């Protein structure tokens, strides 16, 4: 069966690729991304693009739409480069039987990858070039004399015409991707760069869209998992007789500490999971939350010296005007609105998993490993889940479904309970940042920064099931944690985690690639073993670090009696970061003065404005955000009134999609800044529903959001999904300081903490 035949067939088929149909290992090219060689060779044009006999273009991609418009943007990209209309492109996302392995869809890397690497855009450009050459031969004209519009190639003067389908319809190109195939420039774009309405809209709004939660397979059963009652608890015994009378119950599945049930109907599976009597042996207990941040500093750690000019200590020791501050950031959740769900159909000879994972190929490898199946007999098909914002329960539930289906040899759908999702997902890391700097004559003399970030597990990748809860329960270890002292910085500062503030020079040897000007600099980062699983959550590490850097920059600005925007620009040398700062300030009609506001209200409601900016991951998108807030001085309630953002992510694929994603990022950042925090007791996570883990509801007083897009066309496209959210907590915190003179150094800014800051008591608390 070839790919085209397969695509005509039912999505429920199990496709087993025989060894004979696979290229020899030597012929497999390593993709230009963090991926493994697969049976789909990314160096071959036919791996990406197919033109059907009807002129329809099918494009295959390994980057999936996580609910933020990537499907639409990729369809635009293929249509643009191939010069066909949007409705002639059919995009197949992330099906391991037909799509190239592009690793994981994450880290604001999809747009840069699609556009800039030897990838989807280059494939479409290669295909167009090949079609033009075929047309030139067919028509007997030089390719320069031809023009193409909507899949029809015409001789400019001869008027001869030939269509794509006449040239190649249903046949393979048999070409390698050409690195020299000319791409259409943003100036030529007619489909890309336009605010095309997202293609899923009508189906979504009318309840027709198929989420992974809606996948139904003939003969499908329902599974539920039974997670331990506390962190680290292990199974002592399971009393199967406790659920024997539940109708529809098919099987109790116990494998190491993994426990699950399978039943005919969802309600029966839930009932069985609740009633199943299990004796658990308690775990080792959890560290107290109220001293957790301090305890992070005392753990063995894996250290990285990011930059070190070696003179920081001496400069800070002799400076007159020295500031110290500690910033803390809590564990936060992805908290997807739909709990994670997957459907697996495991038979003796192979498995198919319908999964909302960001990583179809890595998931394929792990499922093969868990079930002892040959890699080629496992197929993972991406079906969209609810917004994930990083590593939510998607991977774990895919493994859950595979294990349960394997146990009953029938298709099984698993959707986690709210509690199972929240208590066991891979949280965004808790973090402590110690800042220490000196100012003199309006300039920063030296900046010293030390970071402690809690981590355990993470993305399972191709071979590490123990990085998420299901794997650990099955007996696999998470990525080992090995403490080590920091080596000397080497190479060039890339600032991928925004560990270094934007304002330092970032010198390693003579190589200075930071975005700022502060010469005396030291950034030391410690990774500490976390009691909970952690994993990438929208702007991982970047959001924690940037909160600390951008608020501390504000403290330095106040100490230097300077306007916060001007003070930032004074210490920056990255033109793009300076440009977004200026644009945001202009759009906000920035009130240029020193913070805090001298006319600070002593009672009632105070108002203020704050700014924060970042070069996301050093060079993967630029944003400045100004927030205007009011603070109720009696209750400590912070109410953002307005956000003004200026964003530069290079050439824009779809300005409407970008605005939508940025608006969402800003408000999600506001929720994370104001209310979101994971809590626990001595045994277990206590944030297990929407009352114990708060999120801002749709019915809140929604602030006005204004977004200025700087559309730069002469540079590579960057990511945009995580840029704006990165600066929100700092922009709000700085506005609170401007309004009240009180500095709040702990996320979230609960009313209790704001009250404490207003009263000048307590640095931070658990």
């Amino acid at each position: 069966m070839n790919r085209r035949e397969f695509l005509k067939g039912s999505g429920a088929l199990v496709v087993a690729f025989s060894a004979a149909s696979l290229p020899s290992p030597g012929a497999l090219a390593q993709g230009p991304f963090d991926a493994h060689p697969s049976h789909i060779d990314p160096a071959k044009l036919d791996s990406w693009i197919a033109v059907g006999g009807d002129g329809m273009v099918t494009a295959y991609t390994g980057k999936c739409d996580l609910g933020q418009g990537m499907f639409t943007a990729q369809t635009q990209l293929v249509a643009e480069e191939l010069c066909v209309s949007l409705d002639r492109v059919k995009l197949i996302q992330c099906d391991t039987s037909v799509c190239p392995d592009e690793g994981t869809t994450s880290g604001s890397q999809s747009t840069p990858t699609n556009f800039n690497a030897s990838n989807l855009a280059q494939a479409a450009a290669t295909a167009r070039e090949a079609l033009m050459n075929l047309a030139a031969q067919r028509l007997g004209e030089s390719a320069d004399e031809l023009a193409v519009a909507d899949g029809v190639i015409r001789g400019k003067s001869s008027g001869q015409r030939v269509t794509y389908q006449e040239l190649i319809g249903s046949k393979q190109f048999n070409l390698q991707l050409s690195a020299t195939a000319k791409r259409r420039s943003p100036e030529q774009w007619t489909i890309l760069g336009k605010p095309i309405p997202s293609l899923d809209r009508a189906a979504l709004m009318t309840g027709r869209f198929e989420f992974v939660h809606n996948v139904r397979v003939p003969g499908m059963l329902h599974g539920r998992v039974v997670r331990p009652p506390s962190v680290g608890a292990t199974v002592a015994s399971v009393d199967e007789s406790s659920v024997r009378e539940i109708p529809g119950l098919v099987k109790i599945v116990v494998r190491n500490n993994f426990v699950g049930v399978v039943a005919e109907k969802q309600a029966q599976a839930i009932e069985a999971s609740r009633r199943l009597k299990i004796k658990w042996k308690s775990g080792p207990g959890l560290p107290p939350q109220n001293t957790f941040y301090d305890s992070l500093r005392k753990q063995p750690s894996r250290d990285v010296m990011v930059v070190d000019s070696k003179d920081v200590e001496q400069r800070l020791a002799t400076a007159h005007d020295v500031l110290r501050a500690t910033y803390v950031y809590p564990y936060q959740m992805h908290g997807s609105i739909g709990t994670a769900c997957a459907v697996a159909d495991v038979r003796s000879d192979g498995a198919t998993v319908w999964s909302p994972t960001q990583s179809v190929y890595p998931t394929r490898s792990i499922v093969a490993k868990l079930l002892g199946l040959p890699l080629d007999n496992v197929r993972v098909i991406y079906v969209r889940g609810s917004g994930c914002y990083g590593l939510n329960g998607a991977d774990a539930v895919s493994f859950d479904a595979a294990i349960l289906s394997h146990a009953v040899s029938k298709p099984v759908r698993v959707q986690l309970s709210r509690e199972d999702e929240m208590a066991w997902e891979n949280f965004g890391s808790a973090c402590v940042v110690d800042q220490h700097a000196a100012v003199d004559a309006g300039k920063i003399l030296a900046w010293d920064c030390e970071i402690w970030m809690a981590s355990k597990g993470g993305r399972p990748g191709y071979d590490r099931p123990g990085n998420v809860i299901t794997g650990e329960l099955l007996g696999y270890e998470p990525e080992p944690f090995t403490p080590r002292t920091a080596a000397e910085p080497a190479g060039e500062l890339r600032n991928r985690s925004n560990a270094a503030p934007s304002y330092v020079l970032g010198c390693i040897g003579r190589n200075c690639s930071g975005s700022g000007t502060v010469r005396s600099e030291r950034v030391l980062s410690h990774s500490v073993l976390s009691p909970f699983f952690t994993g990438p959550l929208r702007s991982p590490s970047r959001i924690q670090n940037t909160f600390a850097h951008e608020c501390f920059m504000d403290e330095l600005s106040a100490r230097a009696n300077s306007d916060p925007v001007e003070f930032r620009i004074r210490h920056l040398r990255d033109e793009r970061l300076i440009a977004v700062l200026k644009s945001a300030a202009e759009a906000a009609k920035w009130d240029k003065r020193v913070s805090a506001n001298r006319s600070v209200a002593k009672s009632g409601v105070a108002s203020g404005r704050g700014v924060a900016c970042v070069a996301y991951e050093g060079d993967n998108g630029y944003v400045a955000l100004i927030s205007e807030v009011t603070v109720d001085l009696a209750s400590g309630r912070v109410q953002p009134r307005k956000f003004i953002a200026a964003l530069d992510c290079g050439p824009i694929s779809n300005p409407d999609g970008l605005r939508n994603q940025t608006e969402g990022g800003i408000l999600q950042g506001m929720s994370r800044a104001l209310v979101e925090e994971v809590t626990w007791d001595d045994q277990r996570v206590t944030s297990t529903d929407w009352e114990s883990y708060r999120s801002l509801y749709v019915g809140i007083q929604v602030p006005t959001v204004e977004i200025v897009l700087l559309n730069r066309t002469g540079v590579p496209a960057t990511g945009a999904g995580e840029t704006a959210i990165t600066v929100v907590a700092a922009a709000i915190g700085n506005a609170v300081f401007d309004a009240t003179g009180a500095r709040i150094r702990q996320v979230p800014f609960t009313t209790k903490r704001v009250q404490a800051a207003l009263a000048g008591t307590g640095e931070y608390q658990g």
Partner: protein
Amino acid sequence: MAVRVIAMSKISLKVNGSVHEVDVDPSTPLLFVLADELGLRGPKFGCGLAQCGACTVIRRRQAVRSCVMPVSEVGQDEITTLEGLGTPEKPHPIQQAFIDEGAAQCGFCLSGVILTAKAVLDENPHASDEEIREALAGVLCRCFAHVRMLRAIRKYADTRKA
């Protein structure tokens, strides 16, 4: 925990204009009947605790949470889900307003947002922004498409009044 007797029984259910017969345990949450027995995609499981709104359907002109309502409680009442309002080809005006405004990201929360807003505006076409907000006080959208959603609801409310 008290052991419940779970017996199947035939229940007839009026959903989106048609009558369906299902054979389920009467204590089954309405949501599972809609999603698993009838294959509807609009109402979704978000929390099972009536805390988020993803499972919202309309019953007796009210937005209700189908994840906590036993199917036996529905009786003869008609249930309307998100797909019962309109089709992609002919969306309901409130769905059209959401389409026009691009008022979603992942879209998983839309049953809660659209049906709750529709119910409050059906009840009171002159509902103020404050009243609309109050109605949405228990509806979650974790992608935070709030700006566009409130704009779409306002647009629908204004055209409805006119």
